[in-house]
């Protein structure tokens, strides 16, 4: 089979204890039989470990934070593209997606292809919009309310029973057993991720997840359900196992078909004691544990790149149940010159 030559730009090189999906995505695409790939890493911070993984990235550029606005990002990408001639870009952070989605047309004009959810899809599945989302698509969802002002926290007890979940609009989720704890988490989350902070009904059960890819026409290209077996204090999966859970796949197909979901997706679900599945979050991107899906037989990042390139992709029909991933940490030795180069020149 003739391999396709591509220049692929990827963000999310933060392979830390709160890992971004960049490195697993790159690993999946490097292992794909379909591409000869040159990987251009895009990093926000100079100590993102992926910057220094020379077997994963061919070149890395620093890019401005999404908070600096789409203009600054596009300017930087124009420069990077003039050197690298990027074919496909896979953004991997929730916080940057909006900027990339808004700039999709501009990127297209630059010859850079993406395969992202539409703005409507992105907006309607927001944590603060989850109750309406559940109603619209007939899903079990927890009651959720956005809180914009610290002084409204006292009102929570009128509508919710403690404990409640306190969540950031992009990341972070904490359980709070009383008003004081809500205030503490509200301060921490709002300082980091801004407002609103979301108060969510606590659903008792087992957390299970699905990684999936929609083709934008209502078809599910692939989906693998997983249960976290080892969870870090940041709530991240450090080990997990693929499941034989037809009801989770049915739910995924339903959501992708009803929303005509385009791109990668992670469903965060709670299975209650009576086997109901509650949708607690829909992340509009590939999750950091995506390599489990690859190991189980579904190379979803490869399929996403093919979709971005406008190629026809046949849906995956099966995957291996009982495949596990176990994450590990590893110390790379890095010469100071490399750190100096990325810090001062913004590229390496």
């Amino acid at each position: 089979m003739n391999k396709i030559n591509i220049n692929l730009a990827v963000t999310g090189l933060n392979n830390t204890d709160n890992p971004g999906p960049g490195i697993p995505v790159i690993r999946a695409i490097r292992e794909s039989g379909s591409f000869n790939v040159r990987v251009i890493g895009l990093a926000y911070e100079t100590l993102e470990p992926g910057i220094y993984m020379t077997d994963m990235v061919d070149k890395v550029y620093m890019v401005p934070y999404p908070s600096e606005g789409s203009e600054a990002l596009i300017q930087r990408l124009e420069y990077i593209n003039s050197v690298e001639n990027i074919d496909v870009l896979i953004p991997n952070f929730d916080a940057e997606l909006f900027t990339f989605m808004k700039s999709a047309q501009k990127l297209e004009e630059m010859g850079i292809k993406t395969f992202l959810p539409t703005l409507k899809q992105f907006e309607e599945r927001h944590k603060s919009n989850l109750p309406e989302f559940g109603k619209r698509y007939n899903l079990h969802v927890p009651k959720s309310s956005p809180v914009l002002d610290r002084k409204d926290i006292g009102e929570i007890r009128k509508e919710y029973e403690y404990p409640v979940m306190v969540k950031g609009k992009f990341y972070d989720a904490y359980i709070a057993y009383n008003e004081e704890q809500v205030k503490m988490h509200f301060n921490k989350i709002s300082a980091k991720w801004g407002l609103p902070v979301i108060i969510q009904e606590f659903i008792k059960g087992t957390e299970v997840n699905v990684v999936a890819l929609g083709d934008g026409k209502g078809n599910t290209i692939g989906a693998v359900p997983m249960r976290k077996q080892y969870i870090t204090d940041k709530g991240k999966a450090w080990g997990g196992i693929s499941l034989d859970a037809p009801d989770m796949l049915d739910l995924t197909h339903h959501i992708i078909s009803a929303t005509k979901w385009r791109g990668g997706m992670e469903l965060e679900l709670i299975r209650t004691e009576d086997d109901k599945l509650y949708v607690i979050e829909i992340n509009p991107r590939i999750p950091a544990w995506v390599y489990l899906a690859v190991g189980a037989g579904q190379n979803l990042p490869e399929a996403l790149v093919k979709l971005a390139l406008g190629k026809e992709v046949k849906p995956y029909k099966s995957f291996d149940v009982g495949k596990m991933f176990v994450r590990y940490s590893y110390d790379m030795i890095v010469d100071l010159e490399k750190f100096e180069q990325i810090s001062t020149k913004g590229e390496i």
Partner: protein
Amino acid sequence: MVQDLNIFIPAKFKRKDMKLKKNIAVSESGFIFDPSTGESFSMNNIGTEIVEYLKQDKSFEEIKKSMLEKYEVDSTSFEKYYYDFINSLQQLKLIVDE
């Protein structure tokens, strides 16, 4: 963490035949994996033997007969241990009522 599932604890009495959930995988070493939940458990030899019988759809009477022939245990004690073990399996949603 893999939970131990041994057959030692006193039990409540309950008389009905049970079936192992269809897709449960049991290895010779006594490792049980429930692919629908991702949970896994380990059993001692006697637990493994009983689960093997359940997989073969043997009735309680058939299992009791085999076990009494093989082990030095009286019928009442076996029944007590057996149903306690079954209760554990039931709580872990590894078996379904006949």
